[in-house]
């Protein structure tokens, strides 16, 4: 379903489920359904659930693709391709919350059709056309009366625990999902949450009590005596949904959360910058754009307005949150807001470091935007200009970049409390460093400021 790893063979993230796996052939992704998953797959397709989910845009569509590929295969599916893969630790609070609510909505629909989710991994959700969509067609099994929800623990670890920690402790704790690839352990979440949350029924039950029960039953194979009837299961899903819905974003102020209220641009300078960026992009006509340091996505929307699909990334969780909420409110379909620290982008993770791809491996585009960013990388983070140029050249063949000189008040602010050890941070030094990897196509001053906007094209031998 993704454009990642189209080289061929089995997808490196698809090996945990005996019901089937995902593989690549000629740049197209396929999903093999094994005998073990055949019955459930047929029920999904013939029982009305597939239609119900795809009509609502909740499940990625597929078609059955000819002959089975290998031993034990019942059918091979050809799912619709997604443009970009993102991971839960790169999502803003409301993205993870919407992904959680989508998973629960799918479970409720599945139960109406006599089925149930057999896993509730946050990695089964991707963002496409502005909304969360479920991508694992083999996650559904026939519901059997009396059975508990096998995905309950996974849902709490992948969704509820990180959301609770982001809401009640610190927004940055979503990064714990990067360390704990199968979700945040509930005993850890219970220890980190404030004591007052033990008075909240949902949090107390699904996290604190859940953690306690896990500890009590650790290492035992004792079967519970009571069965879960369908009403109890509906009650559990309903309780999870209410608990997730009640979690709100904490009232915190982050460094860049209100950036566009505090810039040193006049309205006319900002308008001219918008116009220049629009002109530069129109010259390149990119289909996929990577906006690096996008803040709330103001300039990403210029690219999206020209028809490009934009990965709109920023280091600030509140800025990404604002970007996502604007996207939702306007029903925009061309943006994917993303939380990325460019000085430490998401690494390759999981089994053999192949299960989850690094940000750099996924973030391939036709053009990159790097507006009001270079001083944060070169001065605030001490990354040499040459390193920045080399990395940007690895991401896209075209670059729209803004140079912010030392005379600019934003740079002065960065230099106010530290020694200026950046003698090469000049327009000449900038052009020399980037000139090694790019040729300058256009260059224009932003009126009312000392800033300069460049359109660059990657040199052929530096790809």
């Amino acid at each position, binding site marked *: 379903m993704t454009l990642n790893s189209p080289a061929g063979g089995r997808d490196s993230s698809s090996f*945990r*489920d005996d019901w089937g796996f995902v593989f690549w052939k000629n740049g197209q992704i396929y999903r093999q359904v094994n005998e073990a998953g055949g019955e459930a797959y047929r029920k999904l397709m013939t029982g009305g659930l597939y239609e119900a989910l795809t009509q609502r845009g909740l499940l990625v569509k597929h078609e059955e693709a000819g002959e089975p590929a290998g031993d034990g295969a019942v059918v091979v599916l050809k799912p619709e391709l997604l443009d970009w893969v993102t991971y839960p630790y790169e999502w803003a609070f409301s993205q993870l919350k919407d992904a959680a609510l989508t998973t629960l909505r799918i479970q409720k629909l599945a139960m109406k059709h006599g089925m149930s989710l057999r*896993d509730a991994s946050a990695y089964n959700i991707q963002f496409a056309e502005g909304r969360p969509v479920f991508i694992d067609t083999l996650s559904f099994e026939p519901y059997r009366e009396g*059975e508990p929800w096998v995905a309950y623990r996974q849902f709490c670890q992948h969704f509820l625990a990180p959301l609770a920690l982001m809401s009640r402790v610190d927004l940055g704790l979503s990064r714990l999902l990067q360390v704990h690839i199968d979700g945040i352990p509930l005993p850890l979440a219970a220890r980190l949450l404030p004591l007052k949350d033990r008075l909240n029924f949902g949090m107390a039950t699904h996290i604190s009590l859940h953690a306690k029960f896990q500890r009590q039953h650790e290492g035992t194979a*004792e079967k519970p005596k*009571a069965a879960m009837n369908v009403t*109890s299961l*509906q009650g*559990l899903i309903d309780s999870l949904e209410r608990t997730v819905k009640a979690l709100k974003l904490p009232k915190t102020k982050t460094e860049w959360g209100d950036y566009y209220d505090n810039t040193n641009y006049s309205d006319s300078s900002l308008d001219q910058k918008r116009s220049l960026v629009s002109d530069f992009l129109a010259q390149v006509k990119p289909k996929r754009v990577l906006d690096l340091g996008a803040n709330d996505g103001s300039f990403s929307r210029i690219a999206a307005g020209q028809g490009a699909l934009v990965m709109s990334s920023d280091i600030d969780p509140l800025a990404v949150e604002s970007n996502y909420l604007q996207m939702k409110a306007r029903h925009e379909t061309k943006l994917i807001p993303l939380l990325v620290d460019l000085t430490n982008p998401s690494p390759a993770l999981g089994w053999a470091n192949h299960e989850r791809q690094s940000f750099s491996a996924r973030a391939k585009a036709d053009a990159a935007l790097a507006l009001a960013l270079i001083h944060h990388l070169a001065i605030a983070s001490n990354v040499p200009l040459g390193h920045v140029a080399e990395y940007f050249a690895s991401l896209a063949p075209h670059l729209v970049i803004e140079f912010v000189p030392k005379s600019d008040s934003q740079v002065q602010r960065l230099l106010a409390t530290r020694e200026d050890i950046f003698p090469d941070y000049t327009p000449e030094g900038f052009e020399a460093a980037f000139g090694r990897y790019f040729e300058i196509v256009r260059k224009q001053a932003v009126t009312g400021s000392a800033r300069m906007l460049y359109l660059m094209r990657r040199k052929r031998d530096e790809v």
Partner: protein
Amino acid sequence: MIRFIAYVDPSTGSFALQAAVGAVMGVSFMVRNHVKGFISKFRKPRPGKPNDIE
């Protein structure tokens, strides 16, 4: 026969918790649904407002 296994580790603790609190949640769910249904009888329909009950 009730299965207590899954391809992802569901944890016996999670099953035990569901068994312990499932009945309470089930009753709470039914009561809430009845109350919602009762209140909706007295509410004017709002045009363009989607029904959030699947």
